[in-house]
């Protein structure tokens, strides 16, 4: 809450850093090989997804284990519109974002009445159910055999963006996601979310319209994930229900946000960049043991920094307490 009371002397600093990082993103592109460019593109996509989860799981405190539903839905809306109706990508992108946001509001209304882990698993059920529906609507979506987005020749509604194009697309989308979360975090709406996170009854008593605020947050998080899914589907060209609705994507969002620092603007960015780069590096250098090492790192990180890196550093700077055992002392039995 300090940001409300603190003087706004250095309020321009985060914005300046943000613009610099964006510029650095464009500068970095000129220095990368094709493979590296693809890796960074994936990192940027995960920044968007992590921020999407951060809105509902980090700020509002409703841990959605079904966030991939929006990603998959966004991807399939784009895929179907471009494949069946030959709509240009940009129209499909807008439709994907809006439909994902609408879906978020629609399922948010009943689901967000559930508390804690009941909400989490109901969201998981919705994601799995959505995948099954998409798999079985064979005539529209191509079913389990997947669909191919037309990308080349006269057949293509929008020409393939190519590696450079998708890099710029996801860089701008990541900037949009970070900007959105920053604005939300500083707004009245964001304070409502944090109040709900801390004590929903108290928030309601203070006049926060909890249902409306929660549904809006869920819908906004759906918009971000839906846009990411739309771009991903166009980039991947061939999309299948399994990979588009992979539970692992949801879990990665959660891991990135929690390890980085949930309920902060910076944490999910650091989590996404750190984890995705590490994962790619392990995949390239230790192919066989890649998943095993990643699992070990997650276990260690969760035990030592359950509050996330950003929270740990902030706490350290404020109190001078840097002991790694603090969180274990706090959470052990």
């Amino acid at each position, binding site marked *: 809450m300090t940001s409300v009371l603190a003087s706004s002397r250095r309020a321009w600093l985060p914005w300046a850093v943000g613009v610099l990082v964006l510029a650095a993103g464009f500068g970095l592109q000129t220095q990368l090989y094709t493979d590296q460019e693809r890796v960074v593109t994936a990192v940027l996509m995960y920044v968007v997804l992590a921020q999407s989860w951060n809105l509902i799981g980090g700020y509002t405190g409703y*841990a959605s284990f079904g966030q991939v539903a929006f990603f998959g839905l966004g991807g399939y809306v784009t895929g179907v519109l471009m494949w069946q109706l030959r709509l240009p990508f940009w129209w499909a992108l807008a439709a994907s974002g809006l439909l994902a946001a609408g879906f978020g509001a629609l399922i948010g209304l009943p689901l967000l009445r*559930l508390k804690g882990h009941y909400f989490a698993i109901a969201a998981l059920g*919705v994601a799995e*159910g959505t995948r099954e529906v998409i798999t079985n609507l064979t005539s529209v979506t191509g079913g389990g055999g997947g669909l191919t987005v037309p990308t080349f020749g006269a057949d293509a509604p929008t020409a393939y963006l190519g590696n450079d194009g998708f890099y710029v697309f996801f860089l701008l989308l990541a900037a949009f996601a970070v900007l959105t979360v920053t604005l939300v975090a500083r707004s009245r709406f964001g304070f409502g979310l944090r109040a709900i996170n801390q004590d929903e009854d108290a928030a309601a008593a203070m006049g926060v319209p909890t249902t409306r605020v929660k549904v809006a947050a869920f819908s906004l998080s759906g918009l971000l994930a839906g846009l990411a899914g739309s771009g991903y589907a166009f980039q991947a060209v061939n999309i299948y229900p399994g990979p588009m609705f992979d539970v692992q994507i949801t879990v990665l969002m959660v891991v990135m946000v929690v390890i980085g620092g949930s309920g902060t603007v910076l944490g999910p960015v650091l989590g996404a960049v750190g984890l995705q780069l590490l994962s790619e590096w392990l995949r390239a250098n230790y192919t066989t043991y890649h998943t095993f090492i990643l699992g070990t790192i997650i276990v260690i990180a969760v035990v030592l920094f359950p509050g996330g890196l950003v929270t740990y550093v902030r706490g350290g700077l404020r109190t001078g307490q840097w002991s790694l055992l603090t969180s274990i002392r706090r959470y*052990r*039995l």
Partner: protein
Amino acid sequence: MSQFLQATLYGVLQGGLFALIAVGFSLVWGVMNVINIAQGAFVVLGAYLGWGLATYAGIDPFLGMLVAAPVMFALGYALQRFLINLVVNAPVFITLLLTFGLDLMLTQAMNIAFTANYRAIPTSYASRGVEVLPDVFLPLGRFLTFGVGVGVTLLLAWVMSRTRTGLSISATGMDRGAARLMGINARHVYGLVFGLGAATAGMAGAMYGTVGTFSPADAAHLTLISFVIAVLGGLGNPYGALIGGLVLGLIEAWGGQYLPGSWENALAFGVFVVVLLLRPQGLVGRSYYAARLEV
């Protein structure tokens, strides 16, 4: 008609095995508020133990399961006592991430040790069938796994309500602070619960391997059905797992029989979400963990 009876029989038999797959998951979640993502990996590990014993020592999987159970129990106890207890008071998604990390490690370790090939535990009798009604066959292997599944689940229910250990588990689940004041060693109880969860998963794995094929890639799906069953039935309650398992088994069997494509899966998740919305405490459950105070 015989088609319907056959599907029903198949669903019930499958439900018994489902119950055993999920009962440990439900107990761990209900008592400790730990969502064990590694449940499916435990089941697959149990299947490999049964497979190894059958292949290299010639031990029948229904006996091998009795070896797999204590091994898995020891693994589960050690994991809880020395690792998960370190963060067990953190918000639920922290422990969820921890078990997700364990799941990645276990699944990949099994991939390296046993390859990703699909295997089955061969027996001479599992594929035989007995005609119980005209045109309705009772597959022997599935009948035996059903018996084991229901038997072990009921045994667990008996242990939970009739033995000192079981009562201390229930007490710890209801109010850990009060239980500790009564002299219950909560760290040990938590170890026991996770050990029991792993042991039942291991037995379920050996059963799963005798009636079908398995590979490390199945772990995620097995965790997912444990989720559905535990929530359908009600957390922390062995009878809940039994009901949830039967409901899921029947939905899948009937849906598979009468719906085109794989709509039965969509149906299963639809029922899951509706039950959650109308009766979040599950079909048989009380709200076990949700209602208690943290001390």
